């Protein structure tokens, strides 16, 4: 078993399983990958790559979507 690691998601620390991919993280948060845009350490992760992109200890992850605005 991989040990748990800590990442920063939208500014908050979260423990996730070691070896998790971005897609694993979205699933654990019950987010539909089609409605989320993901940035890791200021680099956008394109949707087709979500499954193949591993997360690492200390990664800064931003999960964004569209909200109301002018």
């Amino acid at each position: 078993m991989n040990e748990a690691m800590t990442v920063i998601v939208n500014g908050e620390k979260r423990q996730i399983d070691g070896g998790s991919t971005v897609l694993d993280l979205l699933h654990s948060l019950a987010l539909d990958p089609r409605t989320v845009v993901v940035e890791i350490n200021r680099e956008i992760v394109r949707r087709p790559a979500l499954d193949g992109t591993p997360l690492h200890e200390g990664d800064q992850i931003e999960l964004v979507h569209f909200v109301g605005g002018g």
Partner: protein
Amino acid sequence: MATMVESLVDSALSIGGREFRSRLMVGTGKYRDNSSMVEAITASGAEIVTVAVRRIDLDRTKEEGILYHLDPKRFFLLANTAGCYTAEDAVRYARLAREAGFNEFIKLEVIGDEETLLPDVAGLLEAARTLVAEGFKVMAYTNDDLVAAIKLEDAGCSAVMPLASPIGSGLGLTNPFNIRVIKRRLSVPVIVDAGVGTASDACITMEQGVDGILMNTALAAAENPVAMGRAMKWAVEAGRLAYLAGRMARREIAVPSSPTTGMLG
């Protein structure tokens, strides 16, 4: 037989190679609830609606994303970079918005002052150049300043969006001369963005000959956003038609409308 009005055909609004039916664009922020937002936007007839890019609330204590309420097949989603105070931030938000997968258009905002929310023109130009080089269709929110507008057009912006008055102020069109000169000198569409408060403001703005208007608070903060949405639809259409009709010359003396001959002896 077609009447004069029916034969007066307005061209479609073309921005960045796309054609739009409505010259009214509306925002989706600050509504009391999502159902009145959707109803108000529908009543306005707007085709382009703006959205903002923000973090997802992972605790789900706040409302869900806007796409749960707005059908992206029915509306053209125009993402903004609202809240960005540097060119770097605005570029970052624009890239995230494009990754959402709807289109390559961005309503570029680089704000320079927290109190007035007036734009930072230097930052705006820097961000516009970067985004245009990356293939974005940039619609730039800017001052009602001719030189800034020309520079944004030269930077490759698809539309220039001068303000009528500060964002959310509802003060209406404060400088019609500046807006007219910008419209006269630019080749790309000029969309007046921000400051319109009520239908007469929208009508007067369209009468200057601009290509369209973007508004948000005028609808969202109206007592009845749905009624205001419909009023704005009519005001934008009336102002556009009046502009196309060509108004009469202003005179500072009265000229009688009835015959001056044939009066009783």
